[in-house]
């Protein structure tokens, strides 16, 4: 924290550069090689594969990874817990439950991704309400009870997902399992546009409050007596993090670990200043997820490994390494 101005600019610039480079390069990675000259002359099918499929998928990966990493670093600062992510707080699982129910009622057949989106947001909103209601006592929102309530609600939602899954017919059951693995698919341009705008808007609001998250990372009493409005900050932070997580989960399924791995890796290198950490986590989290997805496209081509599985392969061992080293934050 408080690094020299030059190294701040190097980190921010470097991350932004990687983000843009990933957006330009990764669409060309895939099972069928694209021919440059055909792309240049906008000939089919290469042009369509690039613009309709790979580009939108890469952009989704970049922004989904960014949103999850940003939500992760936000929750970690707010709750002063190395393991606080949209998953441990129940928001992602709530969104998953909502999305699974939407699939059961065939909303995705009628309304496309908007149907799943609505389900996920409703699920996340409901869980948000329940978790915050549980953790608030006497008008005080405490971070440790938020985390505990999140973990409790997590297991309830996971059980409900299994229940719903077991009660549905073959085709829906297949759609649910495919969705639950978590992965990136090409989505419609209008959906992507709305999603990107939501993520950028929410992300900017969160990052602008960097000093406040820094204060909260030290302690609630510390933040309050330095001049931060703790209750309001926690409330806003929890909502912003939930929006980031729920909109992402609705589009990608529950992609694990991006929100855990990226902030941790960066915190070790950059220090704990959220003003620098959050934008870098966003940019590099996006690069990580998009790169994992590109890797999944070519590793066992023509078969695809979902990005969720690849991030889990990376994230699982990383988490064990953190535990082994005994280091949090």
């Amino acid at each position, binding site marked *: 924290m408080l690094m020299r101005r030059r190294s701040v600019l190097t980190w921010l610039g470097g991350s932004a550069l990687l983000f843009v480079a990933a957006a330009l390069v990764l669409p060309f990675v895939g099972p069928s090689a694209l021919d440059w000259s055909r792309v240049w002359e906008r000939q089919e099918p290469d042009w369509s594969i690039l613009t309709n499929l790979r580009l939108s998928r890469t952009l989704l990966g970049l922004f989904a990874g960014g949103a999850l990493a940003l939500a992760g670093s936000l929750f970690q600062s707010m709750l002063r817990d190395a393991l606080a992510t949209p998953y441990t707080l129940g928001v992602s699982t709530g969104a998953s439950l909502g999305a699974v129910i939407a699939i059961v009622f065939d909303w995705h057949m009628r309304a496309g991704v908007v149907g799943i989106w609505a389900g996920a947001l409703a699920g996340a909103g409901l869980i948000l309400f329940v978790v915050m209601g549980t953790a608030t006592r006497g008008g005080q929102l405490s971070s440790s009870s938020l985390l505990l309530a999140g973990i409790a609600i997590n297991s309830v939602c996971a059980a409900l997902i299994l229940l719903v899954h077991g009660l549905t017919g073959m085709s829906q059951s297949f759609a649910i399992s495919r969705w639950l693995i978590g992965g990136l698919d090409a989505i419609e341009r209008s959906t992507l546009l709305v999603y990107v705008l939501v993520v950028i808007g929410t992300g900017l609001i969160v990052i602008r409050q960097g000093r406040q998250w820094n204060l909260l990372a030290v302690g609630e009493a*510390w933040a309050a007596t330095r001049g931060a409005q703790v209750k309001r900050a926690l409330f806003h932070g929890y909502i912003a993090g939930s929006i980031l997580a729920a909109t992402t989960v609705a589009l990608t399924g529950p992609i694990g670990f991006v929100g855990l791995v990226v902030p941790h890796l960066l915190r070790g290198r950059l220090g704990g200043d959220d003003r620098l950490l959050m934008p870098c986590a966003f940019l590099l989290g996006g690069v990580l997820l998009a790169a994992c997805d590109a890797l999944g496209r070519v590793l066992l081509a023509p078969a695809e490994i979902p990005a969720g599985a690849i991030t889990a392969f990376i994230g699982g061992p990383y988490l064990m390494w953190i535990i082994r080293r005994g280091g949090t934050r």
Partner: protein
Amino acid sequence: MGRNGAGKSTLLDIIAGLRAPTEGSVMLADRAIDEMTAIERARTLAHLPQSLRADLSMRAEALVLMGRYAHANRWFESDDDRRIAEEAMQRCECLEFRRRTLATLSGGERQRVFLAACLAQRAPVLLLDEPATFLDVDQQLQCFNVLRAEADRGTACVAVTHDVNLALTFCTRLIVLAERGVARDLPAGTALDDPAWLRGFSARLTVEQSGSRPWVRYQ
């Protein structure tokens, strides 16, 4: 001062606006604490909590700059803020580890950094919950010297402490809490005249003259 559980920290928390009192209200210069905005309160009161997490990955200097939050309405602190933070660190003798992360500092070093952050806040009232915890003897004296100097500049310093002799040496007024209230409230200069105040927290203490000032001994 007072026994464990007498309500010392609770009282400081209430004055700082961290907890609501069950009855009554805290007035500061004719204004109720709970009517102030968070920023106004932070410009008036700086509070050093008793225990803060030790595993912070931010640098000492950045933590001290947090004391400037209520003064700087911008994303990064100004050069003025930096100057004030630097001066505070100098006074608390922690400038040398300004670039180290807090997790790598010892408990006493960390405590000095937190104290510097409170000084950098430049509030007219300083509330300190056991500021000398984790400090070695020299640093305890140094800490109270800093507070004494701060008080001489016109800052109202309220410190919770278990060290009676530190209190007798550096403080002007002793308040002993017991049984849900103020048991004793006396000027430090009269401590020798009326040793009954010591009974407020232990029967094993006696006070006697040592050189020019009173000194408390354990029996």
